[in-house]
């Protein structure tokens, strides 16, 4: 199973990526109704509860202020180098709080990949270069943080997690303080697992976390998720 997934990823990332359409923009307009309570897009769109979404493709996270006040979490990810393109927007829309710790976007996420593809196809029309060659940057479908079900189903050993967590606690405080370094206690285990795999696959940008996550096995990530989930 794992081999198959790696192979699939390798093919998706290769130069001969399938010319796969990213979604149906018309259906995406309907999906966007879930977003439009906070976000505007199109002519005369303004920042409201959330920022306006014209030219979102290719935009650095939290970069276009124009009076908009981003959360510290999103600003941190922007400073780390998070750019909004298909794969990062897709990961964000799937579970906003898992990709960007501390985001104020109060939305539980679009779980259906087709909904995400459709809404992104819709939003792509309002970016500066709505490329219609599907494989061209920045809107090409690329790798996603798509974890095989058996990875998400791993039940971590909290005792091992407690030992591994020692290393995290050099920076992340167990009392949940989050000045300069985010709090990681009490996260739903699945969000934790997805976040760590996103670092491991270098979709999340922070170099220390990429290094720390990079050497953790799937079992070790599950163990950490189990341990930190138990802390309040």
């Amino acid at each position: 199973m794992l081999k198959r997934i790696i192979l699939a990823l390798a093919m998706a990332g290769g130069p001969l990526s399938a010319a796969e359409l990213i979604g149906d923009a018309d259906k995406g307009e309907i999906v966007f109704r879930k977003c439009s309570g906070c976000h505007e897009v199109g002519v005369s769109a303004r920042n409201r509860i959330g920022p306006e979404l014209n030219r979102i493709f290719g935009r650095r996270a939290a970069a276009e202020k124009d009076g908009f006040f981003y959360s510290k979490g999103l600003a941190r990810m922007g400073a780390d180098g998070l750019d909004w393109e298909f794969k990062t927007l897709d990961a964000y829309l799937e579970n906003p709080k898992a990709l960007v710790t501390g985001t104020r976007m109060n939305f539980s996420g679009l779980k259906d990949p087709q909904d995400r593809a459709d809404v992104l196809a819709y939003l792509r029309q309002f970016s500066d270069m709505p490329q219609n060659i599907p494989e061209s940057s920045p809107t090409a479908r690329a790798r996603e943080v798509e974890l095989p079900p058996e990875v998400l189903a791993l039940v971590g050993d909290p005792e091992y997690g407690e030992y591994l967590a020692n290393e995290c606690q050099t920076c992340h405080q167990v009392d949940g303080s989050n000045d300069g370094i985010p709090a990681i206690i009490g996260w739903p285990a699945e969000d934790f697992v997805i976040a760590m795999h996103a670092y491991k696959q270098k979709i999340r940008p922070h170099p220390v976390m990429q290094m720390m996550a990079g050497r953790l096995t799937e079992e070790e990530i599950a163990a950490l998720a189990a341990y930190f989930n138990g802390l309040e």
Partner: protein
Amino acid sequence: MTLNRRAFIGTGIATAAALNAPMVMGQAKPRVVVIGGGAGGATAARYIAKDSKGAVEVTLVEANPIYTTCFFSNLYIGGFREFESLQHGYDKMAATGVTVINDLATGVDRAAKTVTLAGGAVLPYDRLVLSPGIDFRDGSVPGWSVDAHAEIMPHAYKAGPQTQLLKAQIEAMPQGGTFAMIAPPNPYRCPPGPYERISMVAWLLSQKNPTAKILIVDPKEKFSKQGLFEDGWSRHYPGMVERVGPDFGGDKVEVRPDTMEVVIDGSAQKVDVCNVIPGQMAGKIAQIAGVTDEKGWAPVLPDSMKSKMDENVFVLGDSSAQGDMPKSGFSANSQAKVAAMAIRGELTGSKVFPAKYSNTCWSLLAADDGVKVGASYEPTPEKIASTSSFISQNGEDAGLRKQTYEESIGWYEGITADIFG
């Protein structure tokens, strides 16, 4: 007595009551003595006590009742932190079950497994953890010795009054005066430390004494984060910092504290402040205990930080010779957790997981301009070896540099809570 400790603990009250001998009961609890209450020692003491949940008796011996961290002490020199913010007491250690003794360890009898303190007390141990930091090699900078000259030419490389003295001297420099640093040879505590200090001295001078000069006399060809520091100095302090490396006599230096002169390859120059960071070796108690090698450092096994010379002794942090990890507070803290797990495993039979180590060093170049370097490590049969690493890049935008600095402040809060409770 052949009773196995693990079995004894395991069988609990009934056995203890049957033996009915207070002496035996006292000895039944395995004893760990930790010497040195810094990033290595305090972390090890706290983790052994916390994770053994009272099954191990842990005593921490530290001469100073208040510990001043060397990490971030450069930021105090630059004016970015109050001195008090570097200071930490041991009052939270007792709650974890650690007995803290504020005394100086003066002797180790490895055959009898005892530690002698300056106050006369003798502490028996089953496992001994040595984390005494560094000591200075007298004679490494001709003309300078720590006892005779540290008040005139401070080292400020063990944080405390020396750090305050150095800052006061810099603030009292005449306009347009010269600050000199004699940089240390490898290996030494905190590889980017001298160069972060240069950045902070330059920051302070650029605010109060902008025509002052900084001279680094360096025996090393290269140094940690060199590209990042040199880029930072040229952007923030153009023309202020000059470095004399070994190709221009940086390795042939002597100092004359009486006349405040630095002599480079025979040519004398008068300076206003001279920060001498001498060559280093393992803290004195490691030398006394006889666990150091001919180079003055204590070789350890890469998977546990256990001394190669004594199976009952562990050496952490700056004093240890372990392989690729830099001598830093982060490294010592990381090593302490591995050693704590190994020691608990030996004394109580708790599970021992594979060792993982890591380190990150943040440095501040100027206000809101932070950089970092880091790596992860794993034991190989020969040494602790680096498995992957990263470093900040020149040309990063100001937002990222500011965030890196803010992250370092978060790290300081995190690691000091991890060390001291």
